[in-house]
């Protein structure tokens, strides 16, 4: 069992220190990584941990409205919520990631939430290979520009431009889902060379129609190219240099 807890320098890290000072026992599987702010926790880091086989990742920060860096904790929450909703559709148990608010004076809470998290991970069991593979794909998605751009622009859209947050959330989730599918398509193409939408559908287990739509989009972005019709189907291959 491996559990990673990101702690911010101002609230949850001293909160964890306080748990020590008060000698509050919590599971020894917990490994703490200090960052200055929970807002520093890039989803890539969380996903990197999961693909390394870590069973649970908890991000902890200051209570809402009390972030030392004004709104870093809210950015962290937005990201973790997105990740959980992506996990739900990607075969990763969303309960493997969570976010908690722990102030510097809440040593007891630190011990409580780590105990509870350990129990939750015990219930859902160790991370399996399928989840690790999925985390690998989502990691690559969150290392690429498109998903990050849509995620990064959400603050401006919602707070400055007054865009409906629910609508934006939909766009964001759809974008990430598409990117996950495209990443899986790329992997198949890398393995096999040229494939049609139907052939990809068989390997990936998603509807051919949806795959074809994404193939067109990928072609437009010059990630792949079509190599013409073979056996009645349009086949695609990876663009050189991608």
């Amino acid at each position: 069992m491996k559990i990673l807890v990101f702690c911010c320098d101002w609230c949850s890290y001293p909160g964890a220190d306080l748990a020590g000072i008060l000698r509050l026992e919590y599971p020894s599987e917990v490994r703490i990584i200090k960052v200055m702010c929970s807002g520093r926790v890039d989803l890539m880091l969380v996903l990197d941990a999961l693909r390394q086989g870590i069973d649970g990742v908890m991000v902890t920060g200051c209570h809402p409205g009390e972030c030392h860096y004004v709104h870093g904790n809210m950015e962290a929450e937005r990201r973790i919520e997105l990740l959980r909703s992506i996990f739900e559709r990607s075969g990763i148990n969303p309960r493997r990631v969570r976010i908690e608010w722990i102030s510097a004076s809440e040593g007891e809470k630190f011990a409580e939430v780590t105990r509870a998290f350990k129990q939750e991970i015990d219930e859902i069991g160790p991370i399996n290979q399928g989840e690790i593979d999925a985390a690998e794909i989502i990691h690559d998605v969150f290392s690429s520009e498109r998903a990050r751009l849509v995620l990064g622009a959400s603050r401006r859209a919602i707070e400055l431009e007054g865009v409906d947050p629910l609508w934006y959330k939909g766009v964001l989730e759809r974008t990430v889902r598409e990117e996950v599918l495209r990443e899986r398509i790329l992997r198949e193409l890398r393995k096999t060379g040229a494939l049609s939408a139907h052939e990809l559908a068989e390997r990936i287990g998603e509807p051919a129609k949806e795959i074809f739509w994404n193939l067109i989009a990928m072609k437009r972005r010059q990630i792949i190219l079509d190599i013409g019709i073979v056996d009645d189907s349009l086949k695609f291959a990876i663009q050189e240099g991608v």
Partner: protein
Amino acid sequence: MRIGVYVCHCGINIGATVDVKKVAEFASHLKDVVISREYSYMCSDPGQELIKKDIRELGLDRVVVASCSPRMHEPTFRTAVAEAGLNPYLFEMANIREHCSWVHDDRERATEKAMHLVAGSVYKSKLLEPLEPMQVGITKKALVMGAGIAGIQTALDIADSGFKVYLVERSPSVGGKMAQLDKTFPTLDCSACILTPKMVDAGRHPNIELMTYSEVIDIDGYVGNFRVKVLKKPRYIDIEKCTGCGECASRCPVDVPNEFDEGIGIRSAIYIPFPQAVPLKYTIDRDSCIRCGTCKNVCKRDAIDYDQTEEIVELEVGAIVAATGYDLMDVSSREEYGYGRFDNVITGIEFERLCNASGPTGGKILTKDGREPKDVIFIQCVGSREIGGNEYCSRFCCMYTAKHAHLVEDRIEGGKAKVLFTDARAYGKGFEEFYVRVMEEGVDYFRRDHDKPVSVTEREDGKLIVTATALDGSPIELEGDMVVLATAATACEDAFEVSRLLNISRTGDGFFMEAHPKLRPIDTPSDGIFLAGCSQGPKDIPDTVAQASGAASQVLNLLAQDSTTGSPSVSEVNQDICIGCATCFEVCPYGAIEMERLEVGWRAKTNEVVCKGCGICAGECPALAINVKHFTDEQIINKIEGVLADLNEVVT
């Protein structure tokens, strides 16, 4: 690369749970580790010397210390490393005390975790880069929160040294709890007589800006550069015009209980809490005010202003002292004591108001129906030293009870004091002598078993009966006209909110936590924030004053400098891969990102002086072009790999 690893026993703090030898042995096999040592106290001089010697003789270029929280000793070791000529940012710490030995019992698992934490720090250390600390200026002003004796003393000491102090107090007058007291033990000095001159000094000191009836609502920034928001509540009085003549209060038709007199005395809706109040300016309590307009009509100076509203003032200070004091436990929830049910069961602080010459009875000890009580029973340790309740000793009740008992014998003709105590703690200078003197004056002390219940009942004739159990198991029954409860001193009701405001911790008893219980009792783990008085724990007046002067000295240490070093751990934009999307610009809470127009297009750039190093931009950057120095993606990933690595695999 040449890494040195030092594992600390911290006496038995780490050594009792973690096999330190084994951890050091493990570290010695990690790649690039050239020396791995264990030592009883790494933070001690010989411990630091060990590191410095190795840096010089073995040519170490990275140092990892596995010991306590970096909040405790990271500065110590950084300094040591720098003294040996190594850049202080090439040092990394593993917290194997607060995050390991203190929270795990199983020796094997704790040892394994300690190895992981060391491995994580060694891995991260490999990617560390030398950084140069930035110099940041210090605002040469201080904020003192709370103007009881602690806050007043702190403010006066700082102000006397020539620095500006904002002294913020939530009630209409300075003075705090000490202003409510009558005599002070063990010397029986009149509390007001020794306090009032200090209150007046604080009120007219040219370097002190008194902000009464005000509350700190927001604190931002860091050591040397705090930004503070203070809410000034409306007094509905122009304090520039008010002379404190009191004409308004004498004509105001409203009578309500005076909080300062613990509700025993009475004040008007327009009031000063007590005659010696500083500033001597009236306040209208709009919750009780009936809007009759009399005060406005009678005020010769035209000082009444019903239209006043709340005002928020922004201050910039370099240091903050929390002198926010304490509360007394609400004993009405403890039915066995009969408080609230029987008129003549009162608390110690209420008794103080009765004794006080400027109190509601003019210093006469009287029951609620105006008679002089002959037999007064004092019950000690009410709510203190209770397993499952307030487990601590409130420290000043033994002595004030002795003082109260003395006053009963002294002021009431034929008066008799009986004290029901658990242990008489007379630890301070002159305390034991005073305690003996009071007993010799004829006060009877009855020792009770603190674990056995106490009960207060009222007989039909109005006499109060107190029953308890002696240590030998025999019953104690005392009869009296008045019962005085020495209730526990507790952390302020809003101590939690204040601790959040200051970003500091509280100990299990609810009081503010010091940086170290022995050696840094005035500092907090947050640089630039200090503690004075009972906010840190119950203490008597001399201890409070001593700590207050100590806090002032800590503040002066800071304000005497022209600059302090700011962290060089700031964000950095790689403009070669930046796509100019301005996401970082949008998310930065400090406006530390500047967009600049280059030939290739717009590019982001960090203003290092403004940047606080939170890393929100790095977590959000679509192009992965931003990193935070000392917390780079690669460093964090390396640390994660280390803390979760297969222990057998990582040793070569």
